[in-house]
């Protein structure tokens, strides 16, 4: 009964989305207030219905209702409750429903927080949002119905992919989708602006918070995915340039570019058509990622349910959304009035450089991801594009971006001088060079590139802090005065400082872990000791452990340093009985400066067990830095000036005076 209710709610949601996607558009075109007023109500109704459908599916999972085919395929009665819940989106059908859910919630959020938007703009945004929703809901209902019943119901289910039974991966998809889908709002704003034929500072101010929110979630989602890969895949890597990872990186890069170009529109009324294009691209790249992951066009370690028929549907949808948007862009964008003028050397110029480099990065990833496909179709030649290619092409452009990143905030709008900005960065430059030299001579003499990249990481942190210090006139004014200035600094600027410095931490973590980790692979019998990276590691014993839905071998590794106990690590190798699959449970001891990392391999008491040990310096900084980066975004989001409707409120206050 409840699954049917969910199915019915989903069908109703599709009907509501159809109404929401058409009538308000006519209303906005004709200036009919009643039709426009339909949009917010419809958005809230649609959200309510999709939430209902989602809860219905969740109920089927929690109650282990094995008459529902999707539950049978992806759940098992012995699974812990957490994974029963997260199992809802651990499969193709459920994850599409999650997409639709987040999409409709974003629509409802625009309806609620967008009360201050002009009526025609709001109704157009909501209508576009609904049209995207129509695509997804129809996709779910016609090709991937999660509520399909199975008769007769089997006694138990097939269980969830063990790799997904992990807290990190449980919350990775929702965060990622919040990012992907958040860009749909930006897209809807861009299309609405093209329909209205007007892009101005007010528009940029409305778009920025949505972009920022989506960007923050996407940052967190990517970081969580990378962290998961780090501790579950068992060889200490954190980014593999897999098509699925690339698919999430491309919208992130486009979204980052958009965040920066929207500032130029807001402050200087320039770069309008470019910003609109980026807004369309950020969401299009999100959809492209979905297409690549689910269509079977490319292969990936993290294979999703791959089905060419679904692939064709998503391709058509992608064409409708992106193609429609870009056609409108080609028709309308030339008519947008170019805005404020500026010299190449200025804050605007720096932000253009930022956009140029970020877009080149995105193009590098796109080309690298799709090139094997293009070449195979055109010539039949097979090539692989893997980490060494991206390290050779992506990293140099990144370094150029990092070099410019610290200088940009010192440049004034319209026209600026380079030398005064560089003079402020003297100390940061010196510190960075020293750091690079120390890295090159004291830490590792073999890798020059790593030392240079390390210097760039330090440059990012110190350079960003130097900008803050200059703004607060730290050391030139009394401390009290500087603190007062800090309090008065807009949150958006504080957010920028946090995010830029955080990037430096990510770079340091990635460089140190990637280039300077130590590794030991050894077969140990119980009682044997090896020394590794200044520690002595003893395999004390290997026990058999019984988990909720798995059996495991658990090694007890006693780690001592100079005879004193340091820690005990308990890596496991789990065998999930239902799926007959093994998963490594790594043991990590971290002190936030380095990770001591151990995995347990195959073996038995006679031959010993294969143990892998890693010492990963600064590894935690990668994900802490990424989280800090997102935090900077949230701080910026809390800026009063960015809060939705703030400009209008100020206007009403003035009117009241």
């Amino acid at each position: 009964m409840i699954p049917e209710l969910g199915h019915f709610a989903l069908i109703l949601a599709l009907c509501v989305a159809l109404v929401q996607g058409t009538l308000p558009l006519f209303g906005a075109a004709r200036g009919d207030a009643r039709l426009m007023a339909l949009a917010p109500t419809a958005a809230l109704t649609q959200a309510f219905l999709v939430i209902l459908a989602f809860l219905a599916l969740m109920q089927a999972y929690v109650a282990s209702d094995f008459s529902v085919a999707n539950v049978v395929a992806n759940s098992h009665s012995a699974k812990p409750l957490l994974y029963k819940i997260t199992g809802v989106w651990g499969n193709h059908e459920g994850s599409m429903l999650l997409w639709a859910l987040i999409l409709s919630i974003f629509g409802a959020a625009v309806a609620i927080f967008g009360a201050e938007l002009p009526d025609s703009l709001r109704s157009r945004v909501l209508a576009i949002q609904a049209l995207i929703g129509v695509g997804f809901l129809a996709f779910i209902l016609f090709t991937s119905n999660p509520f399909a019943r199975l008769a007769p119901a089997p006694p138990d289910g097939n269980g969830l992919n063990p790799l997904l039974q992990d807290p990190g991966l449980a919350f990775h998809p929702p965060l990622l989708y919040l990012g992907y889908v958040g860009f749909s709002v930006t897209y809807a704003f861009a299309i609405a602006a093209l329909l209205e034929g007007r892009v101005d500072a007010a528009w940029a101010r409305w778009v920025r918070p949505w972009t920022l929110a989506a960007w923050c979630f996407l940052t967190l989602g990517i970081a969580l995915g990378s962290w998961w890969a780090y501790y579950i895949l068992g060889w200490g890597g954190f980014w593999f340039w897999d098509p699925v990872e690339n698919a999430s990186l491309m919208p992130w890069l486009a979204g980052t570019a958009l965040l920066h170009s929207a500032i130029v529109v807001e402050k200087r009324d320039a770069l309008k058509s470019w910003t609109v294009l980026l807004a369309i691209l950020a969401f299009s790249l999100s959809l492209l990622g979905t297409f690549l992951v689910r269509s079977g066009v490319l292969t990936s370690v993290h294979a999703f349910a791959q089905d060419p028929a679904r692939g064709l549907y998503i391709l058509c949808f992608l064409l409708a959304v992106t193609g429609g948007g870009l056609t409108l862009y080609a028709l309308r964008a030339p008519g947008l009035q170019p805005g404020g003028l500026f010299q190449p050397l200025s804050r605007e110029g720096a932000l253009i450089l930022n956009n140029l480099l970020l877009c080149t990065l995105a193009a590098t990833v796109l080309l690298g991801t799709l090139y094997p496909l293009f070449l195979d179709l055109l010539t039949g030649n097979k090539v692989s594009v893997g980490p060494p290619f991206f390290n050779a092409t992506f990293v140099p452009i990144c370094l150029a971006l990092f070099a410019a990143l610290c200088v940009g905030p010192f440049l004034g709008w319209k026209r600026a001088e380079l030398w005064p900005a560089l003079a402020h960065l003297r100390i940061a430059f010196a510190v960075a060079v020293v750091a690079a030299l120390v890295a090159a001579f004291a830490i590792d003499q073999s890798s020059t590139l790593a030392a240079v990249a390390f210097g760039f990481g330090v440059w990012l942190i110190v350079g960003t802090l130097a900008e803050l210090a200059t703004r607060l006139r730290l050391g030139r004014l009394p401390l009290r005065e500087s603190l007062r200035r800090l309090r008065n600094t807009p949150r958006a600027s504080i957010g920028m400082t946090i995010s830029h410095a955080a990037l430096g931490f990510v770079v340091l973590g990635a460089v140190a872990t990637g280039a300077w980790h130590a590794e030991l692979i050894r077969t140990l019998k119980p009682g044997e000791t090896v020394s590794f990276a200044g520690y002595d590691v003893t395999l004390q014993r290997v026990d058999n452990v019984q988990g909720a839905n798995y059996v495991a071998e658990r090694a007890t590794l006693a780690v001592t340093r100079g005879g004193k106990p340091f820690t005990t690590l308990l890596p496991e190798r789990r065998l999930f009985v239902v799926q007959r699959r093994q998963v490594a449970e790594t043991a990590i001891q971290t002190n936030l400066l380095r990770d001591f990392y151990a995995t347990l391999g195959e073996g038995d008491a006679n031959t010993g067990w294969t143990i892998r040990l890693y010492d990963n310096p600064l590894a935690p900084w990668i994900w802490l830095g990424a989280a800090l980066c997102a935090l900077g975004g949230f701080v910026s989001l809390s800026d009063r000036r960015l809060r939705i409707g703030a400009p209008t409120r100020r206007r009403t206050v003035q009117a009241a005076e």
Partner: protein
Amino acid sequence: MWARSQCIALLLLCALPALAVEPTEMLKDPALEARARQIGQALRCVVCQNQSIDDSQAEVAHDMRRAVRERLQAGDSDDQVFAYMVARYGDYVLLKPPFKARTLVLWLGAPALLLIAGVALLFAARRRRTATVAPPPLNEEERVRLSVILGDQWDFHPERSEGACGKQERSLGLRPRDDS
């Protein structure tokens, strides 16, 4: 049909906890072993998806790792080892595609884009700068009309404004009223 099911089976195999390089495979000479690891990370496991042979548990990956070590022990250079693998499995095994005619677009596509866009932007900026030469100064009649329109509250401070707009404002030749 078969190909697909085999893919899935292999995928499962590859996704196992990757204790790929086994202690028994490793070379005694640490320098040689380090080179072998380096090469292994740049060679693709031919039955896995985007995994290097260093990270893969597949049978073939095991054979390839052993072959890499045998070649190194026989005194091959890194390039010779790569050539050995390419002769058997084609460019497909190289995770870093070789730079040749058919990968030209891959290697140079994005940098070329950057270059073209950068040059185009600089040209556009230069053209705009020449295009925005100051408009001809106002004649006396226009000045009077403008000051009437602007009234008292408008106050141009040319010395404070900067940039292209500043130039234009300066060319208006307006001074604050109380100055005149």
